[in-house]
């Protein structure tokens, strides 16, 4: 309406100490200030705010409201920003509001408009549409709307009371909007005209009678609709304050979910509204290991039903520990934060550690196995996979049914016959399936071993206690060596553990010297299921030792050479290896320094061995 906007726009219209201007208080404190936006036309701007023709300089109702709301400059106090523009219609406000809302984070918007729309031939239907859109714009930024009905046109003004039905109808529409949304209404409609009779002394007094001073004169603007004067703005401020201070700020909500351990990033957060209050918005804040993950205001009318509220913030949380808290807000102010709701977002479980079976099992009959592994934290299920020897087992077990303490044990498997097997296990929970464990092998042996194959000695030797060499069969636990006189009769018998063999190649001496003569020897393998048939018998001769007769000098070796007792090997350039200890007597080798080889040696094919004279 006429009259320039009062010049206090975009600054807090706070009296006294409530000068919460940017830069005057620490940002953390400033962030707590509850910011009100007074959006409207000249009546919000405070036009015609005067008494007896003298401006009050109080800034209309927003300038008076701070005292009623207790905006005292403290960090948790409030500030009111006047964005009333003279002559503005709600249609025009739609083009202003985005810029206004961008200026600072507001908490609540005090929205009063429509007077100029009526004056400019706009329907109440469109005014209601515009007010709804304005409120939607605020809502989209987390700002609550306090709707306000407009005051009646001055009955002595140029419109008389002809606009009363439209103003009253607009009041009903605004009341409906308030009911649908915040529930807060500053009902200015009956303010200056209770019981249908208006207090003319609360209106600006120059209405529609130009040229007829007093009160109108050449220096006073005619008011075509009816603005409050200073006393009218006083009443209007009280009306806004009454709507806002009718209730205390909201109480404390109670987070309900998520809580505890959750299998995946929660999609929904729920809380109980504090009973007895009507928070119109709730702020949900989610904190994680790296700080605040999410903080946003949610409008209660969209997210709450009955006593509970739920929102889907669209936040994807990585596994870890989190908390969320909630606080309510009304146009009156913010409530306190709730206690944090703690929850942990699971990751897929770590792989278990297989415990048993592993190694070799001897049984003539097929064996059923119980597979055991260490538990994985937060696992709800385990997958077991066993393969080998034409068998494949894949089972899934509920952790609750097979685990106790720190380990889990499967039910007995189907019997497994002889063969090599491997197995692995993995864990699963609501966050997914973890990786497989390492494969663990085990073997089922169902028969005695095959007979070994004897090797050395198989010729004439000088060493009276040679190292007997043979190749054993798999799954042999021990060997029994038998040496016989060639003429008949057992000379000696020794039993050796297979554990000391190099793979299946075994080499053992008996520790007992044989007298020169002819002998045979054989070896038998054994395991828990029995002994193998004896190997074939190998003949050999022990000859007296004559050291000088077996010297070998400068001999290029292209295949394995066995060096026997009584043979002195000296000063050798070994060249490329590898060198493998073979059977034979004690030998001393000098090669590029000294290497002492016990019990003979051999050189692999392709290697070169030069033997020289003992220095």
């Amino acid at each position: 309406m006429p009259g320039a906007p009062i010049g206090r726009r975009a600054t807090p219209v706070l009296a006294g100490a409530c000068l919460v201007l940017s830069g005057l208080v620490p940002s953390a404190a400033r962030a707590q200030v509850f910011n009100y936006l007074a959006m409207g036309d000249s009546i919000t701007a405070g036009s015609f705010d005067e008494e007896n023709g003298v401006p009050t300089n109080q800034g209309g109702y927003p300038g008076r409201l701070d005292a009623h709301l207790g905006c005292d400059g403290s960090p948790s106090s409030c500030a009111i920003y006047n964005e009333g523009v003279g002559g503005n219609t709600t249609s025009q406000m739609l083009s202003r509001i985005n810029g206004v809302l961008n200026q600072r984070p507001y908490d609540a918007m005090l929205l009063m408009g429509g007077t100029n729309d009526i004056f400019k031939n706009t329907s109440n239907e469109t005014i209601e549409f515009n007010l709804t859109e304005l409120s939607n714009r605020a809502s989209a930024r987390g700002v609550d709307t306090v709707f306000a009905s407009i005051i009646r046109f001055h009955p002595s003004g140029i419109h008389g009371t002809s606009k009363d039905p439209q103003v009253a109808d607009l009041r009903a529409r605004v009341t409906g909007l308030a009911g649908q949304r915040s529930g807060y209404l500053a009902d200015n409609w009956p303010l200056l005209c209770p019981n249908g009779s208006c207090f003319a002394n609360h209106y600006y007094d120059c209405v529609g009678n130009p040229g007829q001073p007093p009160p109108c004169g050449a220096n006073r603007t005619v008011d075509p609709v009816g603005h409050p004067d200073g006393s009218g703005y006083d009443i209007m401020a009280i009306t806004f304050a009454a709507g806002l201070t009718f209730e205390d700020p909201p109480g404390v909500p109670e987070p309900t979910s998520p809580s505890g351990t959750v299998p995946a990033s929660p999609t929904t957060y729920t809380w109980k509204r504090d009973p007895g209050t009507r928070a119109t918005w709730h702020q949900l804040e989610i904190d994680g290991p790296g700080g605040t993950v999410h903080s946003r205001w949610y409008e209660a009318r969209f997210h709450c039903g009955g006593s509970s509220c739920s929102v889907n913030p669209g936040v994807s949380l990585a596994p870890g520990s989190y908390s969320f808290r909630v606080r309510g807000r009304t146009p009156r102010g913010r409530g306190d934060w709730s206690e944090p709701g703690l929850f942990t977002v699971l990751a897929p479980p770590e792989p278990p550690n297989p415990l048993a079976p592993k190694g070799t099992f001897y049984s003539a009959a097929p064996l059923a196995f119980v597979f055991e592994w260490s538990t994985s934290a937060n696992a709800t299920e385990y997958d077991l996979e066993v393969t080998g020897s034409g068998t494949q087992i894949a089972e899934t077990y509920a952790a609750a049914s097979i685990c106790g303490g720190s380990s889990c044990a499967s039910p007995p498997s189907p019997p497994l016959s002889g063969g090599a097997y491997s197995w692995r296990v993995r864990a699963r929970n609501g966050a997914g399936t973890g990786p497989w464990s390492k494969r663990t092998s085990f073997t089922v042996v169902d028969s005695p071993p095959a007979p070994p194959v004897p090797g050395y000695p198989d010729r004439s030797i000088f060493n009276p206690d040679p190292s007997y060499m043979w190749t054993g069969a798999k799954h042999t636990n021990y060997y029994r060596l038998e040496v016989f006189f060639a003429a008949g009769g057992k000379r000696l018998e020794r039993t050796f553990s297979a554990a000391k063999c190099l793979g299946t190649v075994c080499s053992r001496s008996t520790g007992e010297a044989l007298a020169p003569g002819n002998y045979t020897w054989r070896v038998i393998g054994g395991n828990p299921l029995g002994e193998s048939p004896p190997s074939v018998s190998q003949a050999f001769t022990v000859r007296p030792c004559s050291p000088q007769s077996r010297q070998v000098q400068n001999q290029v070796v292209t295949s394995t050479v066995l060096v026997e007792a009584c043979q002195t090997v000296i000063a050798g350039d070994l060249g490329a290896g590898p060198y493998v200890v073979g059977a034979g007597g004690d030998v001393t080798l000098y090669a590029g320094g000294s290497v002492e080889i016990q019990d003979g040696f051999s050189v692999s094919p392709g290697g070169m061995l030069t033997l020289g004279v003992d220095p």
Partner: protein
Amino acid sequence: VRTTSLTLLALTACVVAGAGALSGADLVQATDRDLGVFLVRGTGGWELRRSDSGASKVALPSRLVPYRLEGLSDGWVVTGTVAQGARSNLVVARIGDRPTERLPPPPDRFGLLRTNPVPLVANGMLRGLAWIEGDRHDATSVLAAEWLGDRWGPVETVSPRGPGTQIALACAVLAGGDWLALWSGFDGGDDEIVWSRRSEAGWTAPERLGGDNAVPDITPAVIATRSGALAAWSVYDGEDYRLRLARLAGDAWSLEAVSGARGSLYPQALRAGDRILVVHGTVVPAGWSIVELDEEGGRLRLLRAGSASPERPILLVRWGDALELAWPSPAGGLRRVSALAVPEPREP
């Protein structure tokens, strides 16, 4: 003072006299005969002023809210309303050099509210009047009556009571003599621009102009062109109200794409010779814009005048094609701001 810059707005404040400001209730400008003439509520009552000469007192009710001023061959006709308690009465008066002549109100009144009176003038003669009438703002009919020289003819119903508000009536007399009426009517969902045409066969059934949509279409203006008429109104585009133009040729309307700055509102269509000027306020940037069109409604240029004044100005043609917007003061001064051509805005 004028500049050829397309983007620079030069503001020229010529005369500022007196104090206070005038609202839309205090001012109305003739739309097509002499743009330099306007009716204003002066400090001593209503005055018919000329921008380049003096003013004459006009005997009109002090509480008149003027709606239209149209030129007649021997003066002007002003229409408006005067509130009497809860009633809103029509005022139709012939003014000019002769004493003010109040015409009787149209007959057969049935509603408490009679608003939006639009005089229908052709060839300098008052031919009729259209207005809105009802007991409530949202239960009104659009009515019209022919002026028979000394009395009103029977009241004609242009649009009966609708499902909601019918408001912002605008009318024009077409070149062939037909009457054209447009208004903003609530269709049960939102406000639409509705039109009806009166020929010898009577008024056509009201129709939407531009089809149905789900957003408000408000405050139409209309002016006759050589081949039909040009209408302008504001439509909400989801973020802002913007300007929409439509041309009537024969019996068919053609619509222009929505255009204009953010918050393009309250258009008024005026004629200056063979040019049509659609003046409307804008919110971003704040000020006023003028769409200048040729006789057929073809766009010629866009002009802007920056001014923080929220009050509707009058449009003045200074010389050649130079345009000014001016804000009269009650005491008699004019604050003038040059309107300068600017590029047509890109896609809003």
